[in-house]
């Protein structure tokens, strides 16, 4: 290729990618840098009225957070959401994907739509329905549990039941998206391999374990990373269902950041929470990648 051709290709490349790069810079990179800067200041309502009331306080926000018991409780709650939620979501969505991919299933498109529907419905609307489902006295869930002899559970009022309640809601709401990813991966599993395994006498479980699972490992990694970062950033569900209660048992890190920033209007401290959360997610994702590399998924 001639030099002229190459430079015109470079120009076209820049031309095509500039809008996207500009949007990323303006709407993602700059705000992220601004909030990093903000985390070293004590931006609060006084600074809101007059910027000369803003002070640079280096790492004081971070030190104050580490000494704040509610921050640690939010961290702990978030860890529970991640530890319980990620396996639950991955298992549910993989199960659902296997189901709607199964050849003996009739009306497959209908099943796919039905299982994907929760993901695309409005969160607040579904939260209203779920609050009825989880209602202590009139809720369908307690009614069902009652018929097998389990006493009524105060799902959204008991500090021990509220986190599982939110988790069930989150799993129901978001497994559809992962299911689609798994479904796409399942359809790339070579049929001849499955059939060869079948001829060699492999049962359903060993076909799944030794043929399907290795084939969808990259998709599994993607889903795991997305779910982990989603679980770390849980906010809307506790916000609409419990407002962080009862006894702050559903305050997540992001909910804590929201309260710090927009309820108490300590934007500096809120930005510091965001920075910590960012570092946490990056670290966990790195660990996942390293683990996946060792396991041969990528």
């Amino acid at each position, binding site marked *: 290729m001639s030099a002229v051709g190459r430079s015109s290709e470079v120009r076209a490349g820049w031309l095509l990618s500039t809008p996207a790069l500009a949007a990323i810079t303006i709407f993602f990179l700059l705000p992220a840098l601004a909030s990093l800067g903000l985390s070293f200041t004590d931006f609060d309502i*006084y600074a809101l009225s007059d910027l000369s009331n803003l002070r640079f306080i280096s790492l004081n926000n971070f030190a104050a957070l580490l000494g704040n018991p509610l921050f640690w409780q939010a961290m702990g709650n978030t860890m529970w959401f991640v530890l319980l939620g990620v396996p639950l979501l991955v298992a549910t969505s993989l199960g659902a994907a296997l189901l709607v991919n199964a050849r003996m299933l009739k009306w497959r498109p209908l099943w796919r739509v039905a299982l994907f529907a929760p993901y695309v419905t409005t969160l607040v609307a579904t939260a209203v329905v779920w609050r009825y489902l989880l209602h202590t006295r009139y809720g369908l869930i307690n009614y069902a549990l009652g018929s097998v002899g389990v006493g009524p559970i105060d799902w959204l009022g008991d500090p021990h039941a509220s986190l599982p309640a939110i988790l069930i809601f989150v799993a129901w709401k978001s497994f559809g998206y992962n299911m689609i990813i798994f479904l796409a991966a399942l359809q790339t599993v070579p049929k001849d391999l499955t059939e060869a395994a079948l001829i060699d006498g492999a049962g359903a479980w060993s076909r799944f374990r030794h043929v399907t699972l290795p084939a969808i490992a990259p998709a599994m990694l993607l889903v795991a990373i997305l779910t982990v970062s989603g679980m770390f950033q849980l906010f809307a569900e506790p916000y609409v269902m419990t407002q962080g209660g009862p006894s702050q048992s559903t305050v997540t890190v992001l909910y804590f950041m929201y309260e710090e920033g927009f309820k108490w209007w300590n934007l500096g401290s809120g930005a510091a929470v965001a920075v910590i959360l960012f570092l946490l997610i990056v670290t966990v994702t790195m660990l996942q990648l390293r683990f996946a590399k060792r396991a041969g998924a990528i």
Partner: protein
Amino acid sequence: MNMCIDRRFFLAGVTALASTGCARRSADVEMWAMGNEAAALPELLRMLNTDSKLPSVSVQPLPWTSAHEKLLTGFAGGALPAMSQVGNSWIAELAAIGAIEPVPEAQSDLLSDQFEAVIDTCRIGGKIWAVPWYVDTRVQFYRRDLFARAGYNAPPPRWDDWKAALHKVKRVAGEGNYAVLMPVNEYEHLITLALSAKAGMLNEAGTHGAFSEPNFLQALAFYKSLFDEGLAPLASSTQISNVWSEFARGYFSVYPSGPWTIGDMKKRLPAEFQKRWGTVPNPGPDGIGSAAPGGSSLVVFRGAANSGAAWNVVNALLGSPGQAALQKLTGDMPARKASWAANADTHITAFADQLENARALPKVPEWERIVSEMQVVAERMLRGQFTVKQAAAEMDSRANRLLEKRRWMVERGRAL
């Protein structure tokens, strides 16, 4: 309205708020309101506008749970309406950030015939920043029948006698029952006791905690004794699913609460129970106690283009037809004392007495956060983690930490 487009252009973050501002071109005055009042305002304004002299008002309802955030976001984005209803505890903050101005001299009539403690809540740095619209406070709801069986007409007003009466009432109520309900996650109960003991809670300038003062220590020790002596259950409000039926059952015989409880009692408890409860003001160390004056005020925001029209609306809402209509539509207790005579409800007298004895809470923007911390410490004290003195010291240290910025501001003469 030109301004509105500029705002929308510059402040992408608040487009939602700004666009509601732009969408309603037809009205002269934009007003934000919350809860019941927001629902009643359109009809209230229609009732007042018989001679069509009022400017047209478009009311934007906000939920109470997010109204405070929306006001601050509206200020940050320059998207505030001309006027708004605000909770009395937010006035200090709105004044500190410069969202509102003191009530102008020409409107000072609006502040007459009002409860002094409520006006004092709106007074910051010697100036009054908002016009009280309706008021509320907390009194004791008590079981007439159980107190009668214990030998009392009503809970006595002095702390010593009051506690002695509670012991007797608890005995009358029987095994497993208590005498008073003060959920440990609600800070209002300790605040009522502290105000009754004339504790300041912060120093005069509002720069340091004053929880270790003798008056507050007295209130805190009294609060603790109610739990230690088994008069109050060590429970948070989420653990008591139905306050009214528990009250009727005799689980507790005294429940300090606000005027909304009158309606709840009437609605949720059977007709034959209605003669068996009453209201009296809170007790104090040496006679009738105190309480925090609550309620909402009206503000006209700084720099509102049509502030004249907005003040006309405030005047209409504070006039006697306006106050009477508010009482009728919402059941709120009007801020103007003259409008109280018309209310025939016998339970209301206790509120009037209590309001005459109310005292304003500290007026610093950090207050709400300080009381939340206070209650966290108080609950730990009740669960045995702190003695009274240690708890007070812990409250002081937490308050002082929260007030650090304010001290810096005061030193530079920048705080109100």
